[in-house]
Each structure stands twice: as C-alpha cells, then as structure tokens.
C-alpha cells in the first residue's frame, strides 16, 4: 500500500505533544521501554520517512537526469523536488545553492578540497572554535598542512560560552575562512553565528556553519545568518542515513572547481577536454542517493509539520528541565554550555567512568552517548576522559528525563554507595 504523506496539523501554542509524536516513530513500538536520548548522534525515523522510502522505490524509482522515459523523468522530478524542499527549509535564495552529499562530513571535505586550494595560499588563516566536532577540524588540519595555512582556534570561556571578543581579536587580514558549529555537539552551547558572520565578513573572510545540531531543532535561515556555507546531515534531522546537504552561496559555489568527477556532472567530454556542469550538479558526480534525498525531503516535511519554533521551544524547556533535574543529583557535574544552550547537555558522575554510567543507563533502557563525542580537543581542554551526553528529539518528554534521573541514581547506588 502506498502510504499517503504524513500530515501533522500544526499544534497550537502549548499543544506540542511528544507522546503523540512518539507514536509516529515505529522504533518505540518495537522498543516500548526505550528512552532515547541520543538524537544528537542520529535521530529516529518517523513512519512517513520509512514508508516514504519504500513508496518511492515502489512507484517512482529510476535513475535521475538524462532519461528520456517517463519513469526517469518522474524520479528526477521527485529528486529535484527534494532539493527545492531543502532550499525552502533553509530559506536559500536559489535551489542551485543546494548540493546533495552523503552527510555533513562529506560537505565539509568538499569545501576544504574544492574551495580551499582554489582560494587559499600559504600563510592564509582559517579560524575554527574549540568546540568543533572532528569533522570540522581534521579537514582543515589536512588543508593547513597541504597549503601551508595557519589554523587558529577561537576559545569558549570558562562557562562554555563562545568568546566573541577573543574571536574578534584573532581575525586578521589573512583570515580567509571561519568554520564554526552552530550548536556544540558536546555542551549544547549556541554560537552567535550572525555576529560571527558580521565580524568575519568585515575582514573579507567567508563563513562555514556546521548546522548538524541546529537544523533539526530550530529555525535556520541561511540568508538571515548571512553565512557563505552551511552543512548538515540528513540522518540527524529524522531523515535517512547517507544523506546530507551543502548549502553554498551561488557566487561561492560557482567559483569552485569540481571535487569528484565522473558522470552526471559534465556538459561535454572530449578525450582531452571536459566542460563541467554549473552548481549544484557540478558537485554531484555519479548516481546520487536519489531515494535518500526524497526521504530527506519527507523528513523536512515532518519537521515543518510540527514547526521548528515549536520544536525549539519544546526542546529548550526540556533542556531546562533536564539541567534542573540533573543538577539536583549529588555527584553529577554538568559540563558548562553557556547562557544559551539547546537540546544537548553533557555531564559526569564523580568517581564513575562515563562508560560504566552508559552501561548502567542502558540496562535501564536509557540510551545516551558516552565518550569524547568526536571532540577530543574539547575533552583535553576540560581535562575529561569523556562525558555522558544527553541529546533530545521531538519524541522526548519530562518522563524520559525522570527515567534518566532514576537510572543515574541507580548508578550512584551501585558505584558510590
């Protein structure tokens, strides 16, 4: 049976109902006891996305572009419709600014490997923050070594807040790119992107935003932010794995050479010369993840059906509840996330290794992430081996946080009695 696209009525103020939303996620039918607090790593999938993938393969699937038969045209339409959905979701000016990739990691590598060598030379500077995920650090380290660049790290302060004054002082006429996350995947701290962009642009530097943690849970408008690039992973936004997006301002994308070459991205190929397509197809060599893009489009529909303001409001309130609840538990040390924190928090239980906490929580069916969260430089700065990280999704409510708190108490009972 072809499933009709899910339509969730926009809830009225205060009408956000995580228990009802939870029923849209089959994983909670398979695991009724599951308290899933790891959406920051990857979100669970709503029925509309799961069924939508199958529906697409059943009814509309063929390879995209260049097919003269109707089915290929229909598949192409659905693929390009998904691109338009992403454009609208990010409020990009033009759908040619949306490149489909495998995930945020690939998007950042694309910019590093294509934009980097075309625009940077020895002595130029790239500024990142000290809370970056490895995916927004290692590609720049590689590029630094390859081109002889300087990689400058802007600090967060003792409370976990991005230090805007320190950042401003690090900008120089050689600053070419600022690559920062929108929300820390470890502390949940929200970085002041608009102000970072203004300062960076004043120096003539471009700005890349890692939107992995912000795009699924708050309104993100690339034109309002003013950034030149923004990346996110589809699977963290309730979409299929293997999907992701690079948003790039058209003038930036069109001044970038291809990074992977092959079919689908060329205009004309001769034996000794090739002309490439314009963006975005220039950056989409080979058969793309067609169904994945369609599924991502359905995931964005799902989010829009709830409303990003409503999601942000709900998750902010729940984050506050979790901070309050956990800070009342003796031996719990919360890692600072600054004044503005959304949906993510890290903590340690004094005297208990995060892996032991994770195992006990798991036995209570509370799924959290433990370890360094692909942010080892931040762990080193905080002198921590790792943390226990809680991250929220639309299906979480206060009862989940209460179950978490009870499981932490059981952990104290076991290790600290």
């Amino acid at each position, binding site marked *: 049976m072809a499933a009709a696209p899910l339509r969730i009525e926009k809830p009225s103020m205060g009408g956000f109902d995580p228990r009802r939303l939870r029923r849209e996620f089959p994983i909670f039918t398979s695991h009724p006891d599951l308290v899933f607090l790891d959406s920051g790593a990857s979100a669970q999938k709503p029925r509309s996305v799961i069924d939508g993938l199958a529906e697409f393969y059943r009814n509309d699937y063929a390879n995209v572009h260049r097919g003269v038969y109707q089915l290929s045209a229909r598949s192409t339409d659905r693929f390009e419709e998904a691109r338009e959905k992403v454009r609208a979701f990010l409020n990009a000016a033009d759908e040619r600014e949306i490149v489909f990739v495998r995930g945020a990691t690939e998007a950042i590598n694309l910019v590093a490997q294509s934009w980097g060598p075309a625009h940077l030379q020895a002595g130029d500077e790239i500024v990142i923050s000290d809370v970056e995920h490895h995916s927004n650090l290692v590609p720049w380290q590689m590029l630094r070594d390859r081109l002889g660049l300087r990689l400058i790290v802007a600090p967060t302060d003792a409370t976990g807040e991005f230090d805007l004054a320190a950042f401003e002082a690090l900008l120089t006429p050689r600053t070419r790119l600022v690559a920062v996350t929108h929300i820390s995947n470890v502390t949940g701290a929200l970085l002041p992107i608009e102000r970072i962009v203004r300062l960076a642009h004043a120096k003539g530097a471009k700005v890349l935003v890692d939107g992995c943690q912000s795009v699924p849970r708050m309104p993100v408008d690339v034109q309002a932010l003013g950034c030149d690039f923004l990346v996110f992973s589809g699977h963290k936004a309730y979409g299929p794995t293997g999907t992701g997006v690079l948003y790039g301002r058209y003038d930036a994308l069109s001044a970038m050479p291809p990074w992977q070459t092959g079919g689908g991205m060329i205009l004309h190929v001769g034996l000794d010369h090739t002309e490439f397509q314009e963006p975005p197809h220039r950056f989409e060599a080979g058969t793309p993840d067609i169904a994945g893009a369609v599924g991502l489009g359905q995931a964005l529909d799902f989010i829009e059906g709830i409303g990003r303001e409503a999601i942000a409001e709900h998750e902010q309130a729940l984050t506050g509840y979790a901070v309050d609840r956990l800070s009342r538990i003796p031996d719990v040390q919360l890692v600072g996330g600054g004044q503005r924190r959304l949906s993510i928090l890290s903590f340690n239980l004094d005297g*208990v*290794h*995060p*892996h*032991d906490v994770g*195992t*006990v929580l798991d*036995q*209570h069916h509370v799924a959290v992430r*433990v*370890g*360094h969260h692909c942010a*080892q430089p931040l*762990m080193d700065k905080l002198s921590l*081996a*790792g943390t226990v990280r809680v991250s929220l999704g639309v299906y979480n409510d206060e009862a989940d946080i209460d179950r978490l708190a009870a499981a932490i108490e*059981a952990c104290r009972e*076991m*290790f600290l009695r």
Partner: protein
Amino acid sequence: MSTETAMDLRELYQDIILDHGRHPRNFHALEHPTHLARGHNPLCGDRVTIYLAVEGDHIADVSFEGRGCAISTAAASLMTEVLKGKTVEEARALFAQFHARVTGGEAGEPPEALQDDIERLEPLTGVKAFPVRVKCATLPWHAFEAALKTGLAGETVRTE
C-alpha cells in the same frame, strides 16, 4: 529497576570488580621494568601502561598505571595479581584461557596448575553478556602481550 536489570548488572559489576575498580592493586610504575607497553581504547579514551620485570623465564613483578572504566581498571588489577610469579609460558596460557572465557571462544582444557588463577578471573567473565564492554576487560591483557613481544620499546596497542 526491574529484578532482571539488577541481576544483569550485578553479573557485570560484581563486588570484586567494584573493589578492584575503586582500589586497584599494583597501581604504580615499576622502577626498573624489563618490558612495558601501553594499551589505548580510542572508543572510550581508556589508557593503560603495563610494566613487567621478567627474570629468566618468570615474571618477578608486574604493575600498571592509567585511567579507565571500572571494568578495565579491575581487569588490569586482577591481571597483575595473577601474573606475579608466573612463568612467561603460564602467563600466555592464562591469557588464552581468559580471552576465550570473556569472548565465548574455545581455549581447550586449562592446565591444572592454572585452575585457581582462572577462578580468580572468573568475575570478569560477566562482560560476555555485554559485547561492547569485552574490550575493556581484554585491553590490559593485550598490552601485557605487547610488552612481552617488544620489551622496552613501549609499543601502544589499540583495541580498535
């Protein structure tokens, strides 16, 4: 907490594990080791350094340093206790037995002389039911094995 949950967890975190996790034995560097190696689990950041003082064919002294979870700390602590005074050959046989017991593999009949030591390590076999934690229990042993192989070169073994 359901009874089942409590039972499973107590299988993993038996009193002896919690005790060795909190108060590890032989937890210091050796002044004059003949062998040493480091173990690193990149997944959780656990690090352990194993020191050996081998005299002739037997292990005169063994100790460790590092930071890790309750399981890896207890595994290292218990390992140092059973290895002290063993011949190198016996130590290797113990590792084979231990490894089989925590991973559910086959190691054949253990030598009679090692029965007591195998029993001492028995509490760690609770990790069998927690596949993602098996590496915590085997990390110090892998470092020990690397130390035997490489002497004072200070090799680092990784569990990933």
